[in-house]
């Protein structure tokens, strides 16, 4: 032991006491602390800022796509152009052009250039709307019908103020005379900008003003349904086995390692698997939501397994012991007592897994769910796109109108994700039990 009565020769002799030394060091150290805190705030601020810019840029470009410029025309279904016996063929576009010209005094349709410009105002889909009306009711021939149809993309942009009239004419998509024509229509009071239901009721189209998400929504629905039907029972079965029944040996360790690794395999690799095995070897159809759903199921299963195991683990052993104590078999214990108690946790995990699957894109690209398909799928075996692949397709399209459609589609996708996560959070809070 050291001799404490005399101060140790090694002890530093200090003129100043601890308090003074520390006080002297404090300003420097406080500065350092402030620096660290500032770095932390800057980092969090960066995350906030990026999220803000992301949302703001999507909303500012996307909100316009939720409205669509329409023009209301009084169309005289001219029997000279459209004859009942030739339906569904007929000069529907000419009839529409004539109706439009009515509203544009001073426009000479005989001039081919002018005529083309007038035709260009209306969306390409307008004539089909009229055709479908007339085919459904041939009695309309020879009458005048009131028709509200979308205008084509450049005029839609003009009406939304996305085309700057100050830009020199040469750099503008619409020339001065075209803008003048449109202004005449606006002055005539036939231009309206209602909510764009077409965004949800139309399938994809080459023309931005007609393109909608119906096909993508249905495709995603079928794919998610397939994914759920496959991954939910398989995931729960695997989780119950691993958590409640599997003996602790090398084999179950191997399964566990496998599941953990699968959860971290890049999604594009699952796409390769699906392409080679499902489509290449088994000959399943390309672009089908069913195949997409199977692929997504393989990716979602680890998530469901991990969530289910956590939920099963959270059920206290006392419940199992109580049930075993009155002579229930181990499976009865699990299926009658443990599983129902764990269900809210399992559902929460499943919904979160499905939300991830809904946003998954790469594997769907590889199995061809990025095809250009203009009708919504009626079954999971029809060719279709999905919401994220539709976003990818539109983001790749050169037409200006698709930029705001893309943002709008993203807002729709994010909306679904928010709703799904909100349900998951609600379930967790509503049914969470503290044991």
């Amino acid at each position, binding site marked *: 032991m050291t001799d404490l009565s005399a101060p140790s020769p090694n002890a530093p002799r200090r003129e100043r006491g601890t308090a003074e030394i520390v006080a002297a060091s404090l300003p420097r150290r*406080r500065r*350092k*602390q402030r620096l660290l*805190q500032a*770095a*932390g705030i*800057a*980092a*969090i601020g960066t*995350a906030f800022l*990026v*999220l803000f810019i*992301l949302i703001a*840029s*999507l909303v500012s*470009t996307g909100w316009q796509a939720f409205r669509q410029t329409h023009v209301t025309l009084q169309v005289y279904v001219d029997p000279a152009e459209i004859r009942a016996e030739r339906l569904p063929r007929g000069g529907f576009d000419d009839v529409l052009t004539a109706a439009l010209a009515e509203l544009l005094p001073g426009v000479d349709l005989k001039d081919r250039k002018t005529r083309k410009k007038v035709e260009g105002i209306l969306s390409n889909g307008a004539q089909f709307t009229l055709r479908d009306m007339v085919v459904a009711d041939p009695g309309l021939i020879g009458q005048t019908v009131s028709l509200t149809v979308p205008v084509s993309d450049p005029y839609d942009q003009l009406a939304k103020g996305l085309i700057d009239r100050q830009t020199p004419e040469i750099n503008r998509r619409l020339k001065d005379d075209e803008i003048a024509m449109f202004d005449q229509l606006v002055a005539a009071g036939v231009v309206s900008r209602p909510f764009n239901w077409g965004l949800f009721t139309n399938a994809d189209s080459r023309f931005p003003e007609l393109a909608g998400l119906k096909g993508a929504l249905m495709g995603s629905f079928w794919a998610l349904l397939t994914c759920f039907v496959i991954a939910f029972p398989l995931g729960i*079965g*695997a989780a*119950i*086995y*691993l958590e409640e029944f599997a003996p602790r040996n090398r084999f179950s360790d191997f*399964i566990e390692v*496998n599941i953990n*690794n699968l959860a971290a*395999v*890049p*999604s*594009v*690799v699952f*796409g*390769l*698997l699906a*392409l*080679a095995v499902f*489509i*290449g070897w*088994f*000959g399943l159809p*390309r672009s089908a939501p069913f195949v997409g759903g199977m692929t997504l199921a*393989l990716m979602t*299963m*680890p998530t469901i397994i991990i969530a289910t195991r956590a939920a099963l683990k959270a059920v206290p052993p006392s419940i199992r012991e109580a049930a075993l104590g009155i002579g229930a078999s181990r*499976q009865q214990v699990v299926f009658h007592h443990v599983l129902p108690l764990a269900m809210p946790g399992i559902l929460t995990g499943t919904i979160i897994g499905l*939300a991830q699957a*809904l*946003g*998954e*894109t*790469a594997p769907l690209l590889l199995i*061809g769910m990025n095809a250009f398909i203009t009708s919504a799928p009626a079954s999971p075996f029809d060719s279709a796109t999905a919401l*994220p*692949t539709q*976003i*990818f397709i539109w*983001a*790749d399209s050169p037409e200006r109108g698709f930029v705001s459609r893309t*943002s709008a589609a*993203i807002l729709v*996708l994010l909306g679904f994700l928010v709703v799904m*996560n909100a349900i998951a959070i609600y379930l967790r809070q509503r049914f969470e039990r503290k044991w």
Partner: protein
Amino acid sequence: MTSAAFIVLLAATLTGYWLNRRAAREIRARGERLHSLTTYHGLFAALSVLVPVLVVILAWLLLQGPVIDRIVLSGLPDEAIANLDVNERSLILSEIKSIASGRVFGTPEEWKLAAADRLNDLRNLSGWLMVAVSALLSAVILFVTRRRVSAGFRARDAVERIVSGLMIFCSLVAIFTTIGIVLALVFETSKFLSMVPLTEFLFGLNWEPQIPIREGQIAAEGAFGWVPVLVGTLVITVVALTFAVPVGLFTAIYLNEFASPRLRAVAKPVLEILAGVPTVVYGFFAILVVAPAIRSFGASLGIPVSPNTALAAGGVMGVMLIPFISSFADDALSAVPRALRDGALALGATRAETMLNVLFPAAIPGIVGGVLLAVSRAIGETMIVVMAAGLIAKLTINPLDSVTTITVQIVTLLIGDTSFDNPKTLAAFALGMMLFIVTLLINVLALRIVRKYREIYD
């Protein structure tokens, strides 16, 4: 016919349940004591029918396509297909298929029309056979299981054995998936390597996969050296991590030590939202906002910036990784025992000193594991780079230049092309193989580090 088969299956399952349960009830009504509840007798029959018949139907559906194809091909006149390679045969086959489904282009040869008829007949026959076989099998099983109903029959044990088997099967799906991935990649990659030597693939400095597909088409000879693709991937990964690691770590440090509960309550959900945004959205964000911003910033400095710069793709990928790294670092910091923190504070260390000198060093293994997992994510991330990075493989490490990545090449090589017999498509699988190996190694290493680290403090 498929739906008919499933209706047979459903009906047989329900019948089995009902028959056996009724039989068991009758035994009980006679006053005998049953070993198992009547429900279990019913379930036993239902499961005994459901499982094997379902397997038969699914196997039939999977196998009938290839088998019918083979029969049709072998039935073709010899002179028509004698000198054709696999490629041309599959072309003929798909032509026959489209004729069979009613889409006739031009005037096909007579033997093709005949083959199409045969194809349709075979499909019809196969459908009927499937229904017949499943009905027959169901009937046999129903009969056998019905005979087993007796007072002493341990129906519950039998049911539980079947359920156990089903659950084990569910657990095996994970292994099947892994095996499927490995087999698919190995198989297609070996085909690729039979066309392109391994050394060229691994060490070649040129990646120009656009090779002539039709004869006489003018295109490059095709070069398959993955080095520039790998370098591009690494450039983007490095850019992403240079952004994400500091931001993620400082976020975690601040939230863990300094943030008020209020800020924490706001920041955590914000990070979770960033983590939940689908990558295709980040990709669009990169081309809509980030790339133009970088380009105009570069222009204002007079630096030429390519339109799909690695900086834009990497930066946006970094944003995606922030929540990933910060949550891992936060967990690692929280796992450091409170005693160490108290020990430092009690010595008069400031909170910053406690964090930097004690907590952070102690948490480093966990943080390193998290960063490694982030690296693996960055390498495997697809949509952001597909949308925002370049297509041309250029051997450069300049982040302002346009580079391509493994995942971009996989996607572009496979979009719109399905034949598995030219090096262009197969190259995608070879790249996929490398991607799988690299990410697997990193993941295993990272998970091991993280687990070791947890063991220290648990």
